[in-house]
């Protein structure tokens, strides 16, 4: 029989920490599709191992450990794919993401605010580009642009958002 309270505890912890785990995984893998695939595996493994997770333990830190292992396993499977970083770099990045998680969390919170500051057409473009099922080449065609032109716009907007989140974090520290 399933231990429902334990299951609910897991669901709560997982859903609260999912954005951080996803961001961690995304930092280490080349595409959003890769990250999605590995996230599914991570969820399965976390639940399987949840019996060994002690109440009071840092779930995020524990989940990052599992995620790092799964990403490395995925990267090994794709060892011939030259778009995947080598293991030594993945380990360095994983360590640095985990070490800066507090800042990263604040950055994720600031992002929503910064996105709202974008002019409406740019915000809509950004969200449409990232919406599930969107293809950039089709989006570009619908806008009468080339895909490269759309990628460049998205790149500029991302840089603007990074800058904005940095300012927001600096201001919040000043307060």
């Amino acid at each position, binding site marked *: 029989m399933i*231990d429902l309270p334990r299951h609910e505890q897991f669901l709560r912890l997982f859903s609260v920490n999912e954005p951080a785990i996803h961001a961690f995984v995304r930092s280490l893998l080349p595409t959003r599709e890769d990250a999605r695939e590995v996230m599914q595996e991570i969820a399965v493994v976390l639940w399987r191992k949840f019996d060994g997770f002690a109440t009071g333990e840092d779930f995020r830190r524990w989940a990052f450990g599992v995620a790092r292992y799964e990403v490395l396993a995925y990267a090994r499977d794709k060892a011939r794919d030259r778009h995947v970083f080598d293991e030594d770099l993945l380990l360095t990045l994983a360590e640095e993401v985990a070490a800066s998680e507090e800042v990263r969390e604040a950055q994720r919170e600031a992002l929503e605010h910064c996105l709202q500051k974008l002019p409406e057409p740019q915000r809509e473009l950004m*969200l449409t580009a990232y919406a599930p099922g969107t293809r950039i080449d089709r989006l570009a065609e619908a806008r009468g642009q080339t895909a490269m032109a759309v990628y460049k716009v998205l790149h500029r907007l991302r840089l603007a958002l990074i800058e904005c989140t940095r300012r927001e974090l600096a201001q919040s520290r000043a307060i």
Partner: protein
Amino acid sequence: MSTVRDEHLVWIQRYADGIASAEEVARLQAALREEAALRKVFLDYVQIDSGLAALAALAAARGTLDVPDAARSASALRRGPRSWFRARAAILGATVAIALAAGVALSGWMRDRGRVAVEIVQSEEARWVAPGASLPRAGERLALQTISLAEGALSLRLEGSGVLLKLSAPLEARFETPMRLRVAQGRLSADVGKLGIGFTVVTDAGEIVDLGTSFGVEAERGGESRVAVFSGKVKVRRGAADEGNAFTTLSEGEAVRFSALAGLRRWEHVAMAAEAAGILARANTAVVGAVRDNLGDDELHPFYGVVSEGLRPGSLAFTDKPNPRWAPQPEDRLPAWLEGADLIRTYHQFRYRRDYELVLTLREASTVYVLIDPRQPAPAWLAEQFVETGVRVGVGPWQQGLKQEAGVDVRADGLPYLAFAVWRADASPGEFKLGAPRDSGRLNQALMYGVAVKARATSIP
């Protein structure tokens, strides 16, 4: 001094967008190994990328993001309409994975109950969660107890009751009895015939009891459920059966969201199974982008159906009544300039509201038509904004009681019919406001008006 160069940023962008060449990845990798400052920029960049994906999924889930079909992948289009549910499914991706993880334990939870005989009517790229399970095929007969759908959509007919269920992944459910389905998470629509009256869907939020109808449900695990009634009636109550909460009856066109703790609330995002309902709450092709009233969310109110190009002979006039219909018989004719207009199915029950306001959001310059009972004085808002076209459109049949009234046409079928006057007004894109069906007198003697809208270029009488 920063060692991050423009070309580094280009490599990062191309890597994050999945379009970098192997050579560019190699260069980026070498630079990342060397430069801690670049690694920080890189991590900032992919963190933003991850956050944007989450926010986009959330916006789609909230219905505040409308992705044009032209921008979507063929597979995404094949999966179906871009509804609230589809976007939600993306957000719940990880939870699906948890469900997969929990599969073994769940199967034990469900093991001791009876199974229900079903026939698969249609499979739309459906796949069970269970690893290695064969793909469901149309015509296949199964004895099911648990339903764990990983992908696609599946239509099942329950043997005995004839209840037709359309299940859309990701979904987890189990039959508690042949007439009681517990949905842990996911969405379904049910079409219940006479033998299926009483079919009940149970979610973590409460119960939905079918009274012979078709309806749609979406359930979140441990959270909120949403119900939309396409035809007939259902009873809904929040919480577990033994909590004794009262049922609320929902009729055709009504939609609510509810949870175990919160009461019933109006649910406006019902574009979801609009195809099945023939009611488009937010039609993609309609001139009318949205419809709302001023009655607020504090009481249970239905949504307005906007049927794109829906004004046809025999089309239903109101959302809350099985009759009357516009131009119901061959002797009734719709003028060509009016036929095919977007039809807003108003609520007849709101004829009582003297302060009633109906606000249309028009996507382009349009002609708005109001079809109203000419036996009652035209309300001021109508007389001021609209002009009468002189055209009458038959509408009926009405309730028998109307036969005693003046100006009513009792036809060969013995039922009362009326001819409604057509008024028109040109409107610019944006909001356009209508009011109560009459200004004075006894409102319970008034009849509700109908509304139709056409893009202006094609609506000149």
